[in-house]
Structures are given as structure tokens and as C-alpha cells.
């Protein structure tokens, strides 16, 4: 089964083509979905790409969270289908209430654009079940000003207890440290899952680490994992 990946395009999205290219590279069918569209028929995976939806006006992701397409994305997610929000897409998912917490200005007040190491924290999700091991260190680029993950203590405890932290920033050895945390995220969080584990938000850009021509291929593991997860079991 060749899955169809729908890449949502908000005014101001700028990683939509990269996301489309990457899934295309991995053999999926792809389709752009303009933010005013509400029909997600035939789509197997939704991607909310990086960028600056609505110019990041008010707060990152705040306006995009109320776009017409988001009502359909909520239904899509509620039906258990995979949704991945990358960078600005993660911010949109938090503002839309599909993921807990919020993303704040980086602690160093700098736009950080560089490859970082992230550690795989759980294999129990469609994004991490296909082809990685627990604690595996991936190299994936980040490019953001507002990526400092914040949630209150109770929410963090729940995320930990239910193993819903998908990725943590770490060093080359997989160790956690303030130095290896590029934005001051609480609990070194680089990516989290929703309760049903079918919605992933992450600040790093896996779609920028797929084609070796632009540096690294570790992003393939995450994107390909989603595609594998949709395959029917062999009989």
C-alpha cells in the first residue's frame, strides 16, 4: 500500500515543499492541502510543516490553529490517523490543543539554526516504531526562534509517566545536558506525543535530513516509520 501524505500549507509555511519532497523521495504519494480546504479524504498522514504561518502574528501558531483545515485535522487525529507537526507545525498543534504545553522564545534569545542530536525516548508510536532502537541518537537540524518547550510540572510528570516524550535533545553520546539543550526546553524535550500516540510534534526538521545531498539521512527513520506503520500486516 502506497500511503498518501497530505502537507498542509498555511500562508507563511516555508517547509511545505521540503516535506513534500522528502515523502516523495521515500516513495509515498504526496498532496498539498491549502489551509482553507477541509476535505482530507484519501489522505493517510497529515504533515503540518515548518515556517511562519500567518507571519507568527500574536504568537507562533496562534492564528493557524484556528484555520478551517485544523477542524478537519482534529477529526483526522481523533480517528487515530498519524499527524506530524514539525517546528512551526509543533507550535500549531500546541495552540490547537492537540498537544499539551507551549513553545516559547528560545532561552538564549537567539534563532538557532544547526544540526542537533536527539535521543529516541520511546518506540511506542507510528513515528518511532519502524527501524530505531531506544536511546538511539539521531542528528537532525533545527531552525527556530521559538522552540523552548514549556509545560507545567503536572503535565511534564504525566508526559514522563505515560512515555509520551518522543525525543530529547542530547549530546553525541546520548547524554542530557544544558549545553546540549539548544533552546532551554523543559525536560530537554524536542518532541512529544498526544495521549493516543498518533500525533507527534517536534522542533527538529526530519524532512531536512532525508536527501544526502543536503546533509544527513537520519530524518528518514522518522518519516519512513510513519509509512511502515500504515502497512497492513502480512497474512
Amino acid at each position, binding site marked *: 500500500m502506497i500511503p498518501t501524505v497530505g502537507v498542509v500549507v498555511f500562508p507563511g509555511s516555508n517547509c511545505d515543499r521540503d516535506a513534500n519532497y522528502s515523502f516523495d523521495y521515500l516513495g509515498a504519494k504526496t498532496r498539498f492541502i491549502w489551509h482553507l480546504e477541509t476535505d482530507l479524504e484519501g489522505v493517510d498522514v497529515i504533515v503540518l510543516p515548518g515556517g511562519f504561518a500567518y507571519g507568527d502574528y*500574536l*504568537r507562533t501558531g*496562534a*492564528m493557524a*490553529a*484556528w484555520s478551517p483545515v485544523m477542524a478537519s485535522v482534529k477529526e483526522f487525529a481523533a480517528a487515530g490517523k498519524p499527524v506530524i507537526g514539525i517546528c512551526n507545525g509543533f507550535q500549531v498543534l*500546541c*495552540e490547537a490543543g492537540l498537544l*499539551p*504545553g*507551549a513553545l*516559547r*522564545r*528560545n*532561552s*538564549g*534569545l537567539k534563532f538557532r539554526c544547526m544540526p542537533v542530536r536527539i535521543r529516541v525516548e520511546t518506540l511506542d508510536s507510528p513515528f518511532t516504531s519502524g527501524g530505531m532502537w531506544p536511546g538511539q541518537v539521531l542528528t537532525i537540524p533545527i531552525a527556530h526562534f521559538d522552540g523552548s518547550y*514549556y*509545560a*507545567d510540572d503536572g503535565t511534564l510528570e504525566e508526559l514522563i509517566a505515560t512515555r509520551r516524550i518522543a525525543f530529547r535533545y542530547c549530546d553525541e553520546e546520548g547524554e542530557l545536558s544544558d549545553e546540549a539543550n539548544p533552546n*532551554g526546553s523543559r525536560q530537554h524535550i524536542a518532541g512529544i506525543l498526544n495521549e493516543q500516540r498518533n500525533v507527534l510534534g517536534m522542533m527538529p526538521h526530519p524532512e531536512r535530513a532525508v536527501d544526502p545531498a543536503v546533509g544527513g539521512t537520519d530524518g528518514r527513520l522518522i518519516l519512513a516509520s510513519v509509512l511502515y506503520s500504515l502497512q497492513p500486516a502480512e497474512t
Partner: protein
Amino acid sequence: MSKFTAHINVMPRAEISDPQGQTVERTLPSIGFEGISGVRVGKRITLTVEAPDEESARTIVSNASEKILANPVIEDYELELTPL
């Protein structure tokens, strides 16, 4: 129907660190302003709302503040409402 002016002051919640405020605070002494502490940076939104009375105007703006103008996960807001 009456018109009201609303000012919504949105601030990072007290228990949350405010890197912008901290940076401004560190800069102030270097340009000659001593004795300043507790700097926090927020934003102020101004709008006009039309409603039958002040109470319903306040409800409309409060709901808008909760839903989109402020993010209750990280921000508190205060509402000032005056008849126009």
C-alpha cells in the same frame, strides 16, 4: 448596542521565566539606569467591542482572550474595559 474600548494586558505567567525581561534588566545598568529590577515584557492589545451592555462586552473579550488573544498555558491577562 453600546461600544466599549478594551485593553488586554498579556503577561508571561509569574512562575515562568521571562528571558526578554531578564535581558532588558541586565542591559539597563550598562546604560546608566540603576536600581531597576523585576523587568518583565508582555504585550497590550487594544480593541473596540459592540455589545448590549458592559457585562456582555466583558464576556466577549474575556472569551476571546482565553481562546486566542492570550495562551493560558504561558500567559495571564488583565482586561480593562471603558465605555466609548
